[in-house]
């Protein structure tokens, strides 16, 4: 009996953890390549959710079908953000860099509130719905599909970074910007690419959870904090670390909520951040 409940809790932690990993991977990629933390990362996720919502509401496109469109849209948003704002603060003092992405965060939230109202919205039904049973344990199918999707995207990103020319160039820029430039890699292009991919990852995460998570302008605020914990735990700039840490954070969140009380689950995850900082500041797979 209790073993079943525990199993149920662990699996749901794993499912949400894979989503956190996907959000965090984009954040850590951008940080790794250019040492800028994107405060607006949660807002990319929010835009991904709204993309699914409007595709469904206006064009009756199922959220699952809309995913590739969401990815392309958010890739574009990432590039535009980089070209219009981030590129201009690359050499600016750190304060300006913080203010720039912090300002973007508020801007995107404000725009969402202005155009789409602060209401909580839901996508009423989707191709994937219902539950699947695995022995005594039951899971929502949308959650399972979302987690599988997250694994697929993270895996594809890993493959891209390690097995393609362009991806290797991006990794090289992350490891040593100057050396990469000397090898003829166009730093500006790599930065833009990192923003595009990072935004697309967050947007895809948003699209994946849009079927079972309320959609509202400030939905990103929680995800950015959790993604931040994941990045710190995984080690700054490490994609593999973020993937593992995402799962750990998901498990701790759900397990902590189960043992202590669901109202404390976010506080538990955020406290994990302080513990990591005290015990192992470089995280699981951090370089320094």
């Amino acid at each position, binding site marked *: 009996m209790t073993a079943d409940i525990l199993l149920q809790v662990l699996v749901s932690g794993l499912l949400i953890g894979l989503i956190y990993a996907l959000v965090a991977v984009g954040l850590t990629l951008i940080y790794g390549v250019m040492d800028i933390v994107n*405060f607006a990362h949660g807002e990319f996720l929010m835009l991904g959710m709204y993309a699914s919502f409007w595709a469904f509401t206006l064009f009756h496109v199922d959220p699952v079908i809309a995913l590739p469109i969401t990815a392309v849209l958010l890739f574009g948003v990432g590039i535009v953000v980089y070209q219009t704002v981030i590129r201009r603060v690359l050499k*600016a003092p750190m304060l300006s860099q913080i203010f720039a992405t912090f*300002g973007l965060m508020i801007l995107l939230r*404000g725009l969402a509130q202005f155009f789409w109202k602060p209401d909580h919205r839901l996508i009423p039904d989707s191709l994937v719905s219902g539950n699947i049973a695995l022995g005594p344990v039951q899971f929502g199918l949308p959650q399972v599909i979302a987690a599988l999707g997250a694994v697929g995207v993270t895996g594809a990103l890993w493959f891209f970074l390690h097995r393609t020319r362009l991806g290797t160039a991006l990794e090289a820029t992350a490891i040593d910007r100057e050396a990469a430039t000397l090898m003829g890699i166009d730093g500006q292009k790599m930065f833009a690419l990192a923003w595009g991919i990072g935004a697309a990852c967050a947007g895809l995460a948003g699209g994946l959870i849009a079927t079972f998570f309320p959609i509202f302008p400030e939905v990103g605020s929680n995800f950015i904090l959790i993604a931040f914990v994941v990045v710190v735990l995984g080690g700054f700039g490490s994609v593999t670390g973020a993937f593992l840490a995402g799962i750990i954070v998901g498990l701790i969140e759900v397990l902590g909520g189960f043992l202590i009380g669901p*109202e404390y689950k976010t*506080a538990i995850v955020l406290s994990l951040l302080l513990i990591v900082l005290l015990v192992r500041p470089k995280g699981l797979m951090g370089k320094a």
Partner: protein
Amino acid sequence: MSNRTVLDPRKALGAVALLAFALLLPLGITDPARLNFFILILMGAQLGVAWNIVGGYAGQVSLGHAVFYGIGAYCSTMLALSLGLSPWIGMLAGGLLAVVFALVMGWPCFRLKGHYFAMATIAVAEIVQILVTNSEFLEGAVGLSLPLDRSGLAAMVFLSKLPYYYIILGLLVVTVLVAWAIERSHIGYYFRAIKDEPEAARALGVSLTRYKLIALSVSAFLTAVGGSFYAQKEMFIDPGSVFVGAISIKIALVAILGGVGTLMGPVLGAVILITIEEYSRTLFGSTGSGTDMIIYAMMIILVAVFSPAGVMGLLQDLRRHLPGAGKTSETR
């Protein structure tokens, strides 16, 4: 710019004139809503100047200052409700509690540099908000109300808005004086060294963590004092009004817009921000429409891209370009 020298007479005169203006301003105002508008400006300015000590001078951007604000508000209110203590004492107690909290949170968080420190402060504020919202001792999400039966200076409860105006003006003056004293002292030099040349400062034997903790503590104390004032003015507090992220954002915004690291920048920022807030509300209806957020956000991004020193920096640039001024316009 060396600040250790004698007072610049022009600046001193300007300060006296500004203070005289602020002291006389309420005489021309009969509408309580109008007076409240100026009280809000002074409150924003006080918080912005306090934030600037750690965020501006020491360059450690906190986006979780609501935690100190909330500690101040809750501490003075709880002491008044349970022990009947005067909020003047509660205000000091709240400030001290905020200092203790700043030291405890600063210890792990200052291991993070720059961007990540800012993010960690949001996380800490979020944790505290959740804990307070679920605390029975602090009445959770219901909040705390101050009784109306006691009024007068000792209880810091007044029927008219006017005393609140002068109290917050006094708190602002004290806060500005503290910031000014820091700016001129050796601590101020260390703060700027930490911000601009952390490695060089460390090499010279400046303990980075120690001075960051000092900056955060002073800032926390003054922010908590502002929180206590808010509780007395509103007579009601709940986690949603003092501990939320929106408060942290606003406190930082005031300083960022006006000009980080300048003495009077946050005051200017408060005038701009509160005015925008007020007019966007009357122009576009409720605050739920997001227009005020859009306007602030555009301003912050513009500041970040074009003038890291805020509106104050723009004004200084402008003055340099005017005839008769020096030729040092290329300082950025």
